[in-house]
């Protein structure tokens, strides 16, 4: 592992020479690509089973209404199978948390009594195909009595969303450290802002989908589901349906993107499983369309930050006093709870900056909008924007350079391990180094000179924006304690089997929605066992195959699932060595395994192959040395206990068109300490993809509800995701400091999303000298600002 800083290296091109000499750190050909590139991927939508029927959901046209009647007679008379809320009224999704202020509420499988957001499913129709199922929906009559909706989380409700929470507040917590009031009173400068961020959707290109089939012979449910969390889904479905866990099988085959949206167990998922149990032997398929997805899959980032920050005359951050309100939508998202965004915002608001005096009250407020859930970056694209705004404002007020004020306040390697005021422990600290590299790549001085020149010449103004952030990744049991849910997500399991032919099969608890986990896990296992990458097959996403994995969220899988794969593979290598030593009558310490061959140290030719050792292990027990059992496999769990922080810095130079209000990104740079890069292309792909999502969220993406609770951005013509014409080429650099876990890795999936809000808002502020307190920085908003 090189300690060198690697800048924008040319990593284009798969490294096909990788097989053999160790595959980690190389761009080996992804195992997923062959099927995906040829049209032979296996997505849930592609599952086709005998006797299969199709499901369509009827959805509420009201944001808030009492259900006063349901008439399904016409649909039943026409031969459709129909389910309504009353059919499953005895089952509800109750996300649980032991936090004292948490108000537990219920989410129905299909709404009955009342609907709480426009798009909530109220009935389901089963038919021979989707066309007919939608015909059937036309025949179902639901009667509604409209109630006053609430769409804004910081306005008082006239009619509570849940009776249990009259003020709509589902959770409130205050983080408190030091003495905020006294310190603010004596600070040289106190900056104060009210900041709001726009509502986003993760919008993976594949919408949600499920196929459920009930096997009446075994009393067993099989559920193909485009989920990021198959084991959690199995656990929850079994519990909610009163089934033994061993009789629920969840299969997540190829999944077309997730970004957090698919880490939720949705009522539609459960409805599908419950309907399948009512229709034994008939596989039921539901494929969500985009209009449904925008309405009813989880949203995120609809926040307000009331920020106050005190600095001394040199720009040292002294205290932060914050009040954060997160719109959590109609339901406390299952199983993550309404705490997912507010607690993350409060826990990580201070980010990479040293701070002792910190008070932050966070609350999750229910509204008549789609439930908010985990979305890549969870709260931090908003909280980083809030924090960086404080530094920009203080720098302007104190006359300090915006870069310099940050440099003075970031955690440094000398501070590591640094206990943040929320008591999370930062183990990276390489922010200054990332910042230096990023500014160098941007040509900071050059851009500043150009900025001055343009100011004098009157050409289109340019500005520089900067964001520094820390991404908490790979949370172990101690770090994942925050939301106090009835489970801790710190560990994953992995099974490594050497088959009788010497090839290796890995049954890993990780899941993949594009992150290339089949590839990465194969690399890890190949190197740790000592076999070729091409001789390792990785099977993921099937709860009947792998023992346990929490799945994909919190940038956890490289650290935790990867750690489990590595440790398990090391166990297997030891078993191969022990068996080989017995067979060869050699000392274990003298043996090494490389490319599937077992060598005696110092001998140029292999003594025996892993395949020969494996054959003995399974087929020739007569040759097994005394005390060695048949078989050649291992299963272990790994939990890093704490987490691994990934440091990151993003900077950009942005040009503003005064006539149109459009922002044009002239250059965009990101430098991260992502630890050891196991597959550089994949790591850079994660960062680039995350930045693109962040740019979309900062510039265009905005889910808008009208006052009646109707989503007015219900298609991809209204909810604008960026295309290749909007996302610029980026420079991605690395400061690769190994973390203290088996592979030295830090999670890299989410960090990229954390910067763009702050970077673009900061650049706009820098270019025009205006406050940017509201996102997105869409052209119309910029134009209005320009008109004064």
């Amino acid at each position, binding site marked *: 592992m090189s300690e060198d800083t690697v800048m924008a290296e040319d990593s*284009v*091109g*798969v490294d096909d020479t990788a097989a053999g000499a160790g595959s980690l750190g190389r*761009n080996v*050909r*992804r195992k*997923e*690509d*062959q*099927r*995906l*590139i*040829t*049209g*032979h*991927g296996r*997505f849930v*939508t*592609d599952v*086709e089973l005998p006797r299969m029927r199709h499901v369509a959901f009827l959805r509420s046209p009201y944001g808030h209404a009492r259900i006063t009647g349901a008439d399904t007679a016409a649909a039943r008379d026409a031969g459709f199978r129909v389910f309504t809320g009353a059919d499953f009224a005895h089952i509800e999704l109750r996300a649980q948390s032991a936090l004292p202020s948490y108000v537990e509420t219920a989410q129905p499988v299909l709404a009955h009594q009342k609907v709480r957001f426009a798009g909530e499913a109220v009935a389901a129709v089963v038919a021979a195909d989707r*066309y007919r199922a939608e015909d059937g929906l036309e025949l179902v009559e639901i009667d509604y009595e409209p109630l006053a909706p609430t769409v804004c989380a910081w306005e008082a409700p006239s009619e509570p969303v849940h009776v249990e929470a009259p003020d709509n507040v589902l959770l409130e917590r205050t983080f408190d450290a030091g003495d905020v009031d006294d310190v603010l009173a004596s600070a040289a400068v106190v900056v104060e802002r009210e900041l709001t961020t726009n509502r986003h959707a*993760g919008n*993976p*290109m*594949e*919408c949600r989908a499920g196929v459920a089939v009930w096997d009446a012979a075994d009393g067993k449910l099989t559920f193909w589901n485009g989920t990021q969390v198959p084991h959690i889904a199995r656990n929850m479905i079994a519990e909610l349906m009163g089934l033994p866990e061993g009789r629920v099988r969840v299969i997540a085959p*190829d*999944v*077309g*993107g997730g*970004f957090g949206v698919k880490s939720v167990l949705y009522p539609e998922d459960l409805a599908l499983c419950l309907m399948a149990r009512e229709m034994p032997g008939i596989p039921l398929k539901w*494929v969500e*369309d*985009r*209009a449904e997805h925008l309405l009813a899959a989880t949203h995120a980032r609809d926040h307000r930050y009331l920020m106050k920050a005190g600095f001394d005359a040199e720009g040292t951050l002294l205290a932060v006093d914050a009040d954060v309100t997160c719109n959590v939508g109609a339901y406390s998202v299952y199983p993550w709870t309404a705490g997912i965004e507010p607690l993350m915002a409060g826990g990580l608001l201070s980010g990479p900056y040293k701070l002792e005096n910190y008070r932050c009250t966070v609350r999750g407020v229910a509204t008549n909008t789609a439930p908010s859930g985990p979305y890549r970056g969870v709260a931090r694209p908003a909280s980083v924007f809030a924090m960086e705004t404080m530094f920009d404002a203080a720098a302007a007020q104190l006359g300090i350079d915006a870069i310099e004020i940050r440099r003075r306040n970031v955690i440094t390697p000398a501070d590591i391990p640094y206990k943040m005021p929320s008591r999370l422990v930062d183990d990276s600290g390489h922010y200054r180094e990332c910042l230096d590299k990023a500014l160098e790549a941007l040509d900071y001085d050059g851009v500043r000179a150009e900025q001055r020149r343009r100011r004098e010449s009157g050409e289109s103004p340019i500005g520089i924006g900067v964001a520094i952030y820390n991404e908490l990744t790979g949370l172990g049991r101690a770090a994942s304690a925050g939301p106090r849910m009835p489970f801790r997500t710190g560990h994953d399991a992995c099974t490594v089997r050497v088959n009788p032919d010497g090839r290796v099969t890995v049954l890993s608890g990780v899941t993949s*929605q*594009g*992150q*290339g986990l089949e590839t990465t896990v194969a690399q890890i296992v190949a190197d740790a066992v000592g076999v070729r990458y091409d001789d390792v097959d990785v099977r993921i996403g099937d709860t009947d195959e792998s023992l346990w994995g929490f799945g994909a969220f919190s940038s956890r899988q490289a650290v935790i699932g990867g750690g489990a794969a590595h440790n398990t593979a090391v166990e297997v290598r030891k078993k191969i060595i022990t068996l080989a030593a017995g067979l060869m009558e050699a000392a274990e310490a003298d043996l090494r395994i490389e490319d599937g061959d077992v060598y005696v140290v110092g001998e140029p030719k292999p003594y025996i192959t892993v395949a020969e050792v494996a054959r003995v292990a399974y087929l020739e027990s007569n040759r097994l040395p005394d005390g060695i059992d048949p078989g050649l496999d291992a299963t272990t769990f790994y939990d890093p206990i704490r987490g691994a922080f990934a440091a990151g810095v993003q900077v950009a130079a942005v040009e503003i068109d005064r006539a149109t209000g459009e922002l044009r990104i002239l250059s965009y740079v990101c430098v991260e300490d992502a630890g050891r890069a196991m597959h550089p*292309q*994949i790591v*850079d*792909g994660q960062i*680039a*993809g*995350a*930045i*693109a*999502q962040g740019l979309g969220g900062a510039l265009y993406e905005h889910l808008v509800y009208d006052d009646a609770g109707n989503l007015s951005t219900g*298609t*991809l*013509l209204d909810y604008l*995701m960026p*295309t*290749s*014409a*909007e*996302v610029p*080429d*980026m420079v991605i650099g690395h400061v690769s400091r190994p973390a203290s876990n088996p592979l030295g890795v830090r999670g890299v999936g989410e960090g990229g999303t954390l910067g763009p809000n702050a970077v673009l808002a900061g650049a706009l502020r820098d270019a025009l000298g205006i406050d940017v307190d509201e996102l997105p920085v869409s052209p119309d908003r910029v134009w209005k600002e320009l008109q004064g």
Partner: protein
Amino acid sequence: MKISFSVNGERADLDVEPRRTLADALRDDCGLTGTHLGCEHGVCGACTILIDGEPARACLMFAVQVDGASVSTVEGLQGTDGELHPVQEAFVACHGLQCGFCTPGMLMSACHLLDTKPDADRETIRAEMSGNICRCTGYQSIVDAVERAREGMCVPAVRDSNTAAPWGATFPEE
């Protein structure tokens, strides 16, 4: 309604409802599930296919509209000998796909682009590929892939669209 068309050089005879979309006919009736549906309202481009050599959104067309036409889908790109089309190979080499859901549409758009504008520069590639949304890659690697494929494609990817196997059987001579 009874319709006949050519898909990847093979004749397809279907009896479809007039309202059946071409995408559903390809996926469910022809078994060509490589064509993906990302929005079903013509924005995302995941279902992009070629009809008589021209790109089209399969989600916005009825199956009956291709009666008598020649349709090319992602499944037709790979050569009969299993070798990948240069555009496919370039997407793998440049990590131009992550989850792979938008990829079939991206590949078809890229092939059409390189056939019609074989000298497309990076800016043109970005503009021309903007009809396909990818949520994973950030596009840089996709643009890299199309550039790389441009260098590698010495022969047109589309041959006479009325002959068998209009796609994929032709590769640059090494």
